[in-house]
């Protein structure tokens, strides 16, 4: 065996060992702990009224936040790539900010705007209720669609759009017939990431929700509450449900990635 291949196998072993210790062993352990006593207790734990309510609330928030972030994400990406204006760097920074910012800080900022004595008071309650949780979720998952669509738009260029315009197509027609089909896999990938983040958000939602059981409790908040109440099995079961969603996300990412990269 040459020095070269020995070094290669050594490095491979180190890397796989690191990934196993950090990722595989802990995740496998939690799945084992969850299903240790069979499926029935797990099923019971995720079908309690509180868990079912948390599930639907989580879904409701995602169903509002994800479409909004998709539509405005595509508009923002188009403006960033196709528009010619000063200050693109600033807009770019604002878009990536939610990734670099603590979710607790995001929740607190919303609290200071819409909470008691805040800047804006609306006729309906925002903090400790659904609108605040939706706003927090939109904030934390805002960058995904933009960041996935921008490189695809750069890659395809605007020659076809210009050709369509020359042939008399309106901007709207050019968008639907030319641009949208070209960026659809990028959008799909961004939507998957946005959904995963929306369902999994904890910190920002935790601050603005008030964590009222049966009312403003999402799945992630349920996991924490069960843990705090020493209901470890219940916390594991709810985590396993979220884990299944995460694995579905990974599968979708793996399937979509080659299509997205081909565009």
């Amino acid at each position, binding site marked *: 065996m040459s020095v070269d291949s020995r070094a290669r196998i050594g490095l491979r072993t180190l890397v796989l060992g*690191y990934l196993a210790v950090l990722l595989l062993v802990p995740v496998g352990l939690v799945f084992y702990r969850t299903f240790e006593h069979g499926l029935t207790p797990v099923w019971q734990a995720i079908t309690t009224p509180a868990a079912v309510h948390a599930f639907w609330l989580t879904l409701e928030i995602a169903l509002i936040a994800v479409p909004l972030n998709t539509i405005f994400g595509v508009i923002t990406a188009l403006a960033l790539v*196709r528009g010619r204006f000063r200050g693109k760097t600033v807009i770019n920074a604002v878009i990536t900010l939610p990734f670099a910012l603590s979710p607790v*800080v995001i929740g607190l900022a919303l609290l200071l705007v819409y909470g008691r004595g805040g800047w804006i008071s609306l006729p309906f309650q925002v903090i400790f209720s659904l609108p605040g949780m939706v706003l927090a979720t939109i904030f934390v998952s*805002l960058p995904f669609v933009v960041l996935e669509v921008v490189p695809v738009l750069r890659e395809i260029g605007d020659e076809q759009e210009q050709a369509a315009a020359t042939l008399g197509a309106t901007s709207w027609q050019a968008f639907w017939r030319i641009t949208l089909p070209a960026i659809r896999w990028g959008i799909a990938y961004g939507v998957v990431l946005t959904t*995963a983040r929306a369902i999994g958000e904890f910190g920002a939602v935790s601050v603005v929700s008030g964590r009222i059981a049966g009312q403003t409790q999402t799945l992630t908040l349920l996991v924490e509450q069960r843990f705090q109440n020493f209901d470890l099995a219940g916390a594991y079961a709810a985590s396993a449900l979220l884990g299944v969603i995460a*694995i579905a996300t990974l599968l979708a990412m*793996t399937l979509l990635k080659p299509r997205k990269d081909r565009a």
Partner: protein
Amino acid sequence: MRTRPARASALGLGVATLWLSVIVLIPLAALVARSTDGGLDTFWSAVSSRQAVAALKLTLLTSLAVAAVNAVAGTATAWVLVRDDFRGKAAINALIDLPFALPTIVVGIILLALVGPTSPVGIHAVATTWAILLALLFVTLPFVVRSVQPVVQELDAEMEEAAASLGASATTVFRRVVLPCLVPAILSGAAMSFARAVGEFGSVILVAGNIPFHTQLASVYIFGQVESDDPVGAAAVAVVLLALSLVVLLGIALLGRRGARHER
């Protein structure tokens, strides 16, 4: 005269700016403005309280350590995933994104099962710096891997062969030929994992123990201030984190600009 596409793109820019303002900018402006509600003195005393300083210090130190470990481990992982070949590589490659797909509170539960009171390996690390480091390494694992991987893919193997044929050892080739190409990607990945670690909350709230002056991180400290109904004091420390995030993002933008010039 303005053409139709130009008008459409001006409209798009307007809508995008409005969206970003409502969702991101107004809340952050409120955070900054209201952090000084009690005057600059109150702001300063909130930021410089012993507990806040200890939390910020611990956050910075652990995040720096995590960024450094990620720089090395992430680069090695990216290298193995591109240059090496073994069974199950595609699955491992997909698995790298798991920390991004998993909710952070689930990561907390997972690590608690590993190092908590019911640990099967007999490690009890809850409420230690080790538990914090483990949680932060878990959630930031993908950053460096995903930023370095495409650069390794683009590397010209001929350069390495040329250097080797001129008598350079494997380590010299890596240090002098490969590493310089990877440095911008490693730095930007490490910077993102630093920023993420500084703000991390869900995965650490369960395992860190949140003991003031010992294992309390800045985000958990802020959360505690909000819970004890002191949003203005919380805002002061939050502004420090916001400033830190902005500095990191600025650094990454500058790195990207340098990288782009380098390519030209």
